[in-house]
């Protein structure tokens, strides 16, 4: 039981936060709960997509004891570049390809190269890139927002997949996950590993609850937004990469003890290059989604988003010293931040208070992490 509480502390914190917000908004806004309406919940999800996508990459970066401060600026640069390309008459596919590779991959390789080849602290390199990319975004956009009015492009961030298709996807997801759970148990039996029945039941219950909530949020509205499909795909790929591949395992090793990892035959250079490249590519994707949803691209996009992404990862239990952390935690952290932003705004709390509250929560999360770690010898 204690173990359960400790392992799921952030998830419990998230639920507590949701309940508190629901009650507060009820008290303040009167008759019925605005906060819990499906339109608002759907809104929260749309608001956190950029930070959430970047938090997936940031988890990997922090897992190897790195940091990336450039992602907010890169997001802006990518938004501006894609808007300019569209304006110049490039097709959507070419625009996406060029932005993702030219801004995302290229700048990531640059960051990664200095960090892994010359062992320059990531803090410094990405701090530099943060200003460079921001300057570049302002330079090429002539310091103004650029309108984007390409139907296909705008659909990425603005459209929904129809309700029929949404239902099909959710139902399929439900059965697919049940199949995976049962299959895992079968495999475990084959290797004579104990399976815990309560564990299985718990998993299925959580799954059912999750899918029901998704039904409520999305079908009360117009269906699942396309950007949410992208978001979920990235989360799932991230989780898969970290927990089921050699690549992910190596990241944990590097973060836990880089020297021992090197002596175990891990190519540190390659791993770091890949991680920083994934990070900036995801930031570029976040920029594209922003530009597409808002129908315009401003060089001021994503300012301070790097801090929100880092905060989400840290609140989610990833250790800044590396080696410990999960994407699941970071996503929970993302939602904690998103709900705070949304709920506090709904309640009419002014931004200066919002900042202070957010700051305190980050400090508490880190404190919790430190205390938790100190107990073990």
């Amino acid at each position, binding site marked *: 039981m204690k173990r359960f509480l400790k392992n799921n502390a952030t998830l419990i914190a998230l639920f507590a936060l949701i309940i508190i917000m629901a009650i507060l908004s009820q008290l303040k806004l009167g008759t019925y709960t605005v906060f819990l309406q499906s339109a608002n919940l759907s809104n929260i999800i749309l608001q956190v997509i950029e930070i959430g996508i970047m938090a997936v990459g940031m988890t990997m970066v922090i897992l190897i004891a790195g940091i990336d401060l450039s992602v907010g600026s890169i997001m802006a640069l990518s938004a501006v570049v894609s808007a300019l390309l569209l304006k110049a008459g490039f097709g959507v596919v070419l625009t996406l390809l060029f932005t993702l590779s030219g801004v995302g991959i290229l700048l990531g390789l640059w960051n990664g190269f200095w960090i892994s080849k010359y062992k320059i602290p990531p803090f410094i390199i990405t701090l530099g890139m943060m200003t460079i990319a921001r300057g570049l975004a302002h330079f090429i956009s002539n310091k103004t927002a650029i309108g984007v009015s390409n139907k296909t492009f705008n659909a990425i961030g603005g459209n929904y997949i129809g309700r029929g298709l949404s239902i099909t996807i959710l139902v399929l997801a439900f059965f697919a996950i049940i199949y995976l759970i049962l299959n895992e148990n079968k*495999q*475990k039996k*084959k*290797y004579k*590993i104990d399976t815990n029945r309560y564990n299985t039941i718990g998993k299925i219950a959580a799954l059912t609850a999750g899918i029901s909530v998704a039904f409520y949020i999305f079908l009360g509205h117009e269906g699942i937004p396309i950007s949410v499909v992208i978001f979920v795909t990235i989360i799932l790929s991230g989780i898969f990469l970290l927990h*089921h*591949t*050699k*690549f992910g*395992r*190596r990241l*944990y*090793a590097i973060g*836990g*003890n880089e*020297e*021992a*990892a*090197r*002596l*175990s*035959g*891990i*190519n540190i250079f390659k791993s770091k290059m890949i991680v920083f490249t994934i990070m900036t590519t995801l930031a570029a994707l976040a920029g594209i989604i922003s530009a597409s949803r808002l129908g315009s691209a401003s060089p001021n996009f994503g300012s301070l988003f790097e801090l929100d992404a880092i905060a989400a990862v840290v609140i989610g239990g990833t250790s800044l010293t590396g*080696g*410990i952390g999960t994407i699941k935690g970071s996503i929970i952290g993302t939602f904690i931040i998103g709900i705070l932003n949304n709920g506090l705004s709904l309640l009419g709390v002014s931004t200066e208070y919002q900042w202070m509250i957010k700051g305190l929560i980050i400090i508490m999360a880190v404190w919790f992490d430190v205390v938790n770690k100190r107990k*073990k*010898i």
Partner: protein
Amino acid sequence: MSKTILKMKDITKDFPGVRSLDNVSFSAVSGEVLALVGENGAGKSTLMKILSGAWPHNSFSGEILIKDTLHSFTSTKDAEQAGVAIIYQELNLIPELSIAENIFLDREFTTIAGKINWNKVYSETKILLKELHLDYLDPEEKVKELSIGKQQMVEIAKALSLNAHILVLDEPTSALTETETEDLFKIIKKLKTHNVCMIYISHKIDEIKKIADKIMVLRDGKLIGKTVKASSITTNKIISKMVGRDIKEMFPRHKIKRGGKTLEVKNLSIDHPVLKGKKRVKNVSFKAYKGEILGIAGLMGSGRSELACGIFGALDGDTTGKVFLNGKKIKIDSPQAAIENGIALLTEDRKTLGLIMGQSIIHNTTISSLETVSGRWIIDKLKENDIASTLIKKLKIKTSRLDDPIDSLSGGNQQKVVIGKWLNTNPDIFIMDEPTRGIDVGAKVEIYKLMHTLLKNGVTVIMISSDLQEIMEISDRILVMHEGRIVADLSKKQATAKKIMHYATGMEKTK
């Protein structure tokens, strides 16, 4: 005039899934050395961590009485104040700080204005180092530049500087050479005359016979019999009390014929990483053969570990020379390349170089051999689990759960995990740097037998060891290093302790 200074009563400590101490009671006397022996995972370090406050008083049951007063420590600082100092089994120095800073960490001498009096810190450190015959060490040198043996000596100096009444030494000599051990023993003898009570943990029984006044034995968390006088018990008796059975052969022999040449090193030189123009390995050439255990002896700092790291491609500094594998010249510029060529290196320092602390046992066992448990990308976790648990059984690693962090294992069991991790890579050349460090007598025999199995499968084993007896009994051939050079190549018949020491100390420079 002997006086009981310490009593520990009915100590019981549980970890999830294991009772590591079960109702342990004993007492210790001022001016005496009490040896604490037992198998890996018997509970020795746990008992001492309780005494030193590392496990706070509410995490176990039982009483600690020092000079007949009851103590409940909540931290190691409390214990220090009560006069208890401990040298932990795993090194705890801060690599980035200097020797002096490490020794006086947290209690630097300050002037009235609160400024640290560095002159005093350094001069006190000099005095301490001198006592340990370490005059040649510079108090301002960073700890990370030191070999593990010297780091151990710094730990000892740190504990001595506390002027404790009770001093715990948890396997202090596992990384020391004979001479360093002798120096330590001189100090222990001096402390005895100052009426310090010492509790001494070691797996080296002959050492215990030499230095201890009394002996107590732990097995599976329980005391076996009473504390006995060291002079009244034979080595064999101690061992059978420890492991619960007799061990017939401490050093098993093998009858495997030496095969063809596998590894050949020609004119290997390795630059010192910091000091320009100085070399740590000088023009070393040797050959190793299939089905042979090649021992490398030498004093600490003679370049043995550097040689191993150089072959393994683990050094950043300039390495010149040629390495041939089965007659073919190979280029190894990274550990990754070495592993791909079938070379494994068991490093001497398990905590900083061998293991990833904080991560699970299972991940630590497969980290250098992920290919064996995965396809191109994806890890087959069940297969991984299977391989890891087979290994745990084979090496008799004492653990309750595979996904517990590696930190929860006792020191010797951690060492077994490192061995297992490299076994998993199925090497053709297995270089082992102090493989039996911290491993109990019974398990040592198992490891020697394991080496024989490897030989049978055509593996070349190269073993670096500071344990003179081990290297003489186990190796088929012994290279002796001195100041970065190989100064002797002795067959098993030629090798005597005297001869090895003779070459190792540089008395004779001819090959």
